[in-house]
């Protein structure tokens, strides 16, 4: 099988990601797709930038796949994440999980996105109309202002 956990600066294909996990013994595939949302708590996002610690991030995605196989037994997982500049509605992440029965596919896919937000070294920077900011909270609810762009803060 080709590499099932990868980062890329090219547009992501859901069909391609799902092909990694399609197999005769699995009747159910769940996919989670994260897209760039225009409004977050009333603030308008213009674009996003994703940065990663690439070799570690790919390892951690693979680790999530192994955790899922340990928890759900017969499960195949593929995860790809986009890097670089993204526009509104672009796909940032695709997770695909195949299992023999659908309940496990839903649960495992949910598990994967929660774990990505915990352990995979990928960061996004939001560009708003009035500024930009590295987002640092795993739950996507609290901005993490360390990396604000104010020139007076730069070394």
């Amino acid at each position, binding site marked *: 099988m080709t590499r099932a956990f990868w980062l890329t600066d090219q547009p992501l294909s859901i069909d391609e990601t799902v092909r990694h996990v399609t197999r005769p013994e699995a009747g159910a595939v769940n996919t989670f797709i994260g897209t760039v949302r225009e409004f977050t708590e009333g603030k308008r996002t213009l674009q996003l930038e994703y940065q990663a*610690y690439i070799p570690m991030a790919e*390892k951690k995605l693979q680790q999530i796949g192994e955790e899922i196989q340990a928890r759900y037994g017969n499960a195949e997982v593929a995860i790809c*994440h986009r890097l670089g500049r993204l526009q509104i509605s672009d796909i940032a992440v695709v997770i695909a999980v195949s299992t023999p029965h659908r309940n496990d596919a839903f649960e495992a896919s949910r598990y994967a996105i929660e774990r990505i937000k915990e352990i*995979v070294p990928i960061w996004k920077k939001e560009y708003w109309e009035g500024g930009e900011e590295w987002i*640092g909270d795993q739950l996507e609810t609290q901005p*993490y202002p360390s990396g604000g762009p104010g020139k007076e803060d730069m*070394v």
Partner: protein
Amino acid sequence: MSKILFFAGLQERLGAEALELQWKGKTIAELRQTLKHEYSLETIDAAMVAINEEFASDTAVVQEDDTVAFIPPVSGG
């Protein structure tokens, strides 16, 4: 020498992606103190640490040729 990697806000604040420091035999906790006070990285305490691409604790001791990475709270997905 040890390679110290920085990402996201830490990288922008430092103005560099990496530093080369001689840190063999010293701990991550000591490295945090140095980075906080000598490099003005006040928010480094919010970051996790990885040594050679695996998460490590503040008590870990850096070995020759280790790559240390400071991992700010992640926001992928």
